[in-house]
């Protein structure tokens, strides 16, 4: 590809990664002052901060690739729902602490090998983001693993709740490994990580943790999708309404 031509594939891929981090950072930050113990307020906000930090770099880069003068805030606050390309797993509502941790396990077990693979991306910016994000994802995974195990193998109530939370979020995990044309072309170019290689790593991690947690791997025929093409859950509109309203109420203002 010619250097000056608009690299629409790279733009789409960078935006997906950025949107995933942004909306999950937003969801996790909803736990501020609501978590089960003070240590978790610190931990959940820490994870949120890692994700929001990655989102800022990725969205800034996406804006540059797009070349229409949109910065991170232009992309975060001024796009409407169909222009967001986050995966459904990232945007889904957090539910209780068990569901939040079940989702975090599925996400971190995916993001860790994703970022590890992207450290070798031929795109320098992605490789740079990935180096930092892989270290963070390793911590996120440890944290989620330790909670899923404690909840699964804790009390009857915690076992029931975390299993139920897992059932809620599990169907959204299939979308993570979809291989559409954008991903296929970027894998070919050595830019993107290959979802076919990520899937077995993810499965091994997740099944191992669920086994230790005495939890069942959910069985479902429902494989919802659409996030990557801008078709989102109903709850996502509310997330955006809350996140964007202040920024949009003051067009052009600096903060």
């Amino acid at each position, binding site marked *: 590809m010619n250097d000056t031509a608009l690299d629409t594939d790279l733009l789409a891929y960078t935006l997906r990664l950025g949107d995933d981090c942004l909306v999950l950072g937003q969801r996790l930050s909803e736990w*501020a002052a*609501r978590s089960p113990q003070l240590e978790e307020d610190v931990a959940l906000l820490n994870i949120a901060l890692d994700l929001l930090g990655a989102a800022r770099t990725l969205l800034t880069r996406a804006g540059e690739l797009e070349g229409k003068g949109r910065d991170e805030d232009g992309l975060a606050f001024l796009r409407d729902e169909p222009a967001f390309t986050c995966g459904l797993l990232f945007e889904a509502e957090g539910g209780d602490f068990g569901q939040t941790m079940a989702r975090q396990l599925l996400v971190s077990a995916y993001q860790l090998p994703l970022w590890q693979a992207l450290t070798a991306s031929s795109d320098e910016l992605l490789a740079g983001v990935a180096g930092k994000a892989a270290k963070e994802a390793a911590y996120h995974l440890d944290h989620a693993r330790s909670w899923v195990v404690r909840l699964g193998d804790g009390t009857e109530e915690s076992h029931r709740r975390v299993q139920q939370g897992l059932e809620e979020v599990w169907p959204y995990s299939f979308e993570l490994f979809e291989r559409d044309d954008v991903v296929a072309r970027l894998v070919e170019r050595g830019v993107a990580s290959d979802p076919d290689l990520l899937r077995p790593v993810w499965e091994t991690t997740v099944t191992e943790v669920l086994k230790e947690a005495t939890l069942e791997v959910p069985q479902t025929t429902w494989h919802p999708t659409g996030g990557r093409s801008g078709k989102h859950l109903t709850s996502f509109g509310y997330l955006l309404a809350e996140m964007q309203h202040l920024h949009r109420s003051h067009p052009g203002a600096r903060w």
Partner: protein
Amino acid sequence: MSEQLQAEFQAAFQAEVDADGRIEPRDWMPDGYRRTLVRQIAQHAHSEIIGMQPEGNWITRAPSLRRKCILVAKVQDEAGHGLYLYSAAETLGADRDELLDLLHTGRQKYSTIFNYPTTSWADVAAIGWLVDGAAIMNQVPLTRCSYGPYARAMTRVCKEESFHQRQGFEAMTVLANGTPAQRQMAQDALDRWWWPSLMMFGPSDGDSPNSAQSMAWGIKRFSNDELRQRFVDATVPQAEHLGLTVPDPELRLDPETGSYAFGEIDWTEFYAVMKGDGPCNRDRVRNRVAAHEDGAWVREAAAAYADKQARRAAA
């Protein structure tokens, strides 16, 4: 313990305090000193965690990603401050769960400032600038407190609070120099937070019954009125720099002392808020209790799992 021995311990304790030394957890200390410290440290810890609510409710609505990250980091710091302070209280024999219970049942207080609502984004900036600013005035002297673990916790806390204060002032500067709507938002926030911030230093010296004892014990170094005056003197020029008006018609600079004379604080309001009738007392406590109760099953699970692991290790 014999009376003579008791007197010797007491004398050694006071000599250590008077020499600006540090009392450590294993040292002998008077019961009143221990009780006073537990109460003060616990109320301080409660203030940190209740203080997460008024600003935390703007995290999801922050107007830029940079501001969102700054705010998330700040609220996370406040949770960390709560953790250090409950730990400091535990070195005196208190228990975090029991202290939380005292907060949840209204038997221990937290700073009255957090019973005011944050109705606009500028309130986040004003809290950083004024509330963290006032907290620093109160807390820097505590880094020299006679009780070692409290003094050390405060050293760490004060570094972060001064960071919060600078960020708050910077956010306020952007608003004050922004659009007319942002400027108005900034002025409105100053109007609402000024007097409650002055109240953060507590009642006037004449009405502050425990101050003298705390000073003798090396817990308190400066009087409430002295600290309040320092805060006013440091903050009024900052407000002027922002081009904002401090809502006190009686504010006057005394050119001789370089100090500001200011109007009478409405102590009726202060005591009403302290007793539970501020705009947000009920919400703050209700939210805290709800978070605690909603999380009970998680804490029980962690404890049950730890027990199982201990039994497995023993088997």
